[in-house]
């Protein structure tokens, strides 16, 4: 949950990168960490398995400057994508303010994307949050694989599978090359801040 600290004049916001396993959630945070190194005062925290898969979450705090005299502190989290870690995913969603759903463009990952999004909606409901109301951005990741001849889903197919009801903003990109990573982040931050302002009014 977003927290406004009037004493320290700061706003803390929690944004979670959600999506199927090996979809590129951690890679998004890795890219942001490298790109904004000068603004990030701490090391990225990652709780991983021995096989380098996310076990609990990755955590990256980013300061984005001041709005109306308040320091805006964005706390980025990823969830573990592997199917067996759903209990952990639920925990990481606690108090979430905005979500980036990182979907995998690879055709063979089509079912994983759909299942992961459906489970996210269910998990949000356990925290009394509604996927149709919470700030949400979709990222169709791994467009860089197109050049390697790997069969990818079209944007129309992705939209049909994931966004036909939600109708939220989406970006086609590559977390590995950084394509659309910053645009996705900027969009979710602005949507979350607008949602805060509405709540305050």
């Amino acid at each position: 949950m977003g927290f406004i600290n009037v004493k320290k004049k700061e706003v803390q916001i929690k944004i979670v990168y959600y999506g199927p396993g090996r979809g590129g959630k951690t890679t998004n945070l890795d890219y942001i960490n490298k790109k904004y190194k000068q603004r990030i005062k701490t090391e990225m925290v990652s709780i991983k398995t021995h096989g380098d898969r996310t076990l609990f979450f990755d955590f990256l705090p980013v300061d984005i400057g001041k709005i109306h005299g308040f320091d805006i502190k964005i706390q980025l989290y990823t969830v573990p994508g592997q199917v067996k870690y759903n209990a952990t995913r639920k925990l990481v969603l606690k108090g979430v303010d905005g979500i980036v759903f990182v979907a995998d463009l690879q055709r063979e990952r089509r079912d994983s994307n759909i299942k992961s999004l459906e489970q996210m909606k269910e998990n949000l409901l356990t925290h009394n949050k509604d996927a149709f109301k919470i700030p949400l951005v979709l990222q169709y990741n791994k467009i860089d694989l197109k050049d390697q001849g790997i069969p990818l889903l079209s944007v129309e197919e992705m939209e049909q599978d994931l966004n036909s009801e939600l109708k939220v903003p989406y970006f086609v990109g590559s977390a590995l090359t950084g394509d659309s990573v910053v645009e996705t982040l900027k969009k979710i931050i602005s949507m979350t801040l607008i949602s805060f302002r509405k709540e305050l009014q």
Partner: protein
Amino acid sequence: MYNVSQEQLETIDVTLKEDLLSIGVHCAIVIDVAGNTIAQLDDGHCTFDVTSFAALAAGNFAAVDAMAKLVGEQQFSLHFHRGENESIHFSKVNEDILLICIFGQDVSLGFLRLKTTEVINKIKIIWQR
């Protein structure tokens, strides 16, 4: 989203200082279950990254809480990690906030638990205002 008034935050700071730092606690942190830091006071010697600590602490507490429910417990009443030099004690203030104390060998766990119970009651009252 929520906010806490400056007066509430200052009163929490006073409580942490008078009841916990005064008995030798090195660092006392109040966080919410999402991992945001609400208040933090230390003895001036704590150099670790509080933001990351809060995120990990919230995750750790939530994981233990979920484990308790899996074995049929409402919650585990003692949540404590003992280190060689520093130990960490977690307590739940209410459904939304947690109190975490980092302390050395000069503070006994029993005494700390008594003091944290007092502090929790005080913070609950401050929170309801």
